[in-house]
């Protein structure tokens, strides 16, 4: 038994376009320990979802070109697996919860049938048995009247229920790894709280490792053990969740945190990170974050910093990392 459930080394994904090459992911390392919840955080367009799809091996070539040194799930190297092998694996050992439940579910198939399919595909269950399991799975995620809900179509369910169905779908075969791509972004606040609590409970109960992808740091604070902050295709900071929130070391992480509006204070202005993520075809020289960074110096404009270990369990890609909590809080 290895300690890491998911072990990803040097993943690169690019999309060749007529106008140039879009480097969506530029060599990232990522590992998820057994039973751990790891969050991958960043703004839109930083390569989070592409990373998730690459781990699931769901990216088609063409249009994408991807290369990875190592992709291990529970000690098994998946790098050279064929599509057929991957199909046996997806849904069974590795499953994904998508952001938009309406488009992730098949609109012309009852939700029950879609979950049954997972059981029938991956276990030797007969249809009737699969139906029974489906109802059980739906009850487990708190779908009321599961017995009649199995016959509903996606459009007949509310957003919260749809997301629950997706969770039931992902947890159906108790996979080793769940990848949740913005699982609550499309939901209302009270429903978001429900769904996050459910996800957390399911994860704890079954000891499933989770890779959570989100742009919302408040979700991370409530779910994750370890945080990877991604910017423009590269990891810029990795640390335990508690450490990240207490003292971010990368200016980008600090900016992300400061921009979350809080209930605890009343201000006139919100703290903002100026500007936007660079276009993936026109990334700046040096550190990709330097045009938006208040601490940028000549060094930052010239050379890309390496991801360096600053303290135990902490890596930061910055020439001038924030040093201590006092400074980080200013």
């Amino acid at each position, binding site marked *: 038994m290895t300690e890491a459930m998911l072990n990803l080394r040097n993943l690169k994904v690019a999309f060749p376009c007529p106008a140039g090459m879009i480097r969506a992911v530029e060599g990232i390392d990522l590992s998820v320990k057994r039973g751990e919840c790891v969050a991958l955080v960043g*703004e839109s*367009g930083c390569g989070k979802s592409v990373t998730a799809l690459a781990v699931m091996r769901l990216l088609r070539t063409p249009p994408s070109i991807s290369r990875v040194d190592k992709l291990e799930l529970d000690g098994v190297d998946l790098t050279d697996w064929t599509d057929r092998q991957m199909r046996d694996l997806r849904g069974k050992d590795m499953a994904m919860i998508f952001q938009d439940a309406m488009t992730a579910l098949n609109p012309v198939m009852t939700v029950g049938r879609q979950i049954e399919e997972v059981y029938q595909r991956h276990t030797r269950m007969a249809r009737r048995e699969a139906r029974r399991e489906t109802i059980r799975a739906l009850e487990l995620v708190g779908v009321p009247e599961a017995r009649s809900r199995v016959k509903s179509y996606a459009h007949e369910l509310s957003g*919260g229920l749809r997301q629950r169905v997706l969770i039931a779908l992902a947890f159906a075969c108790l996979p080793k790894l769940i990848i949740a791509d913005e699982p609550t972004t499309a939901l209302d*606040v009270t429903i978001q709280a429900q769904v*996050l609590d459910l996800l957390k409970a399911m994860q704890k109960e079954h000891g499933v490792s989770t890779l959570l992808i989100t742009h919302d740091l408040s979700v991370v604070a409530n779910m994750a053990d370890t945080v990877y902050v991604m910017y423009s295709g590269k990891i810029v900071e990795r640390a335990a969740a508690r450490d990240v929130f207490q003292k971010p070391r990368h200016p980008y992480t600090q900016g*992300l945190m400061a921009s979350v509006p809080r209930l605890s204070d009343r201000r006139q202005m919100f703290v903002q990170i*100026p500007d936007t993520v660079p276009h993936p075809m026109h990334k700046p020289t040096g550190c990709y974050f330097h045009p938006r960074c208040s601490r940028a110096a000549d060094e930052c404009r010239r050379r890309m910093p390496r991801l360096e270990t600053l303290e135990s369990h902490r890596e930061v890609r910055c020439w001038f990392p924030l040093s201590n909590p006092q400074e980080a809080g200013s």
Partner: protein
Amino acid sequence: MIGLEREAGPLLEMENVSVNFPVKKAYPFSRRRWIQAVTDVSLRVAYGETFGIVGESGCGKSTLANAMVGMVRPTAGVVRFQGADLYSLRRREFRDARRNMQMIFQDPFSSLNPRFSVYEIIREPLYIRGGATESAMKARVLELLKLVGLDEEDMNRFPSDFSGGQRQRIGIARAIILNPVFLACDEPVSALDVSVHAQILNLLMEIQRSRNLTYVFISHNLAVVKNICDNLLVMYLGTVMESGASDAVFANPLHPYTKALLSAVLDIDVDGSRERILLKGDTPSPIDPPRGCRFWQRCPSAMNGCAAIPAPLVEVEPGHQVACHLVSGFSREQLAAGAGEPVTSATGS
């Protein structure tokens, strides 16, 4: 009545406004059903303030905003803008009033015409109003582009070239080109990345300060509302649950729904000290809503009487109203009928 009375009178006033939409009949002779999107809402928005409307999707926030700016005629009630009854104005007067009120939409991807250049989008209101030369319009668009933080070169590009935040800036420029006095912002940041929220909110506040605008700000994010609103209204299934000065409501939330909303806001300061109130189930359908308090099915402290008896909006302190039986109490007769007993069985939807 909501908000403090100012000398000049309110800019916008709604009195017992209800908006119903007919549901398409399943069969020709089946009973006509109505979606009661907004029921009996009264509010006052003073000059220069930011008035927040808070609630989850389907609670009627957007319908209320549409009724404010003259896009949806209320089924009942009066909307007064600068003292004039908006929906009984004559066509020309109505058009003039509409110029003073503009809207910023939630989804910057569907609210901009993809076949218009940025220039055409921002110019559109001026163009429709007429009376401006091409060069004057160009100068004005340029000025606004700068104001919202875009470049001159962006003028001839198309919405698809921009990120969500930049598109929202275009929407803002379009909304203020006619120098309105009132802006209804319908979830202006909820479709955007959290890191971009701050940029857009700051821009909106800057514009408000420099042009002395009045905002109605619709949101489901209480942390944002707390930061920018003077007064607010908490809505659920088309009715007002709680309203008042933002400071008063946040200091002392009284309605169970407000409390639940507040507790559901995820904070990044995790210390586990805050208790989370988890609501059961989803928002029920606004078609034939419950007769009594509309929140009772999901309310953690629902009593027997809540299902049948509507809760009146009562003033608990100056400028702070709550519609909840926990606050207003039941009458003697109602109590005798068992209205105050706790609901025994779990009756969540």
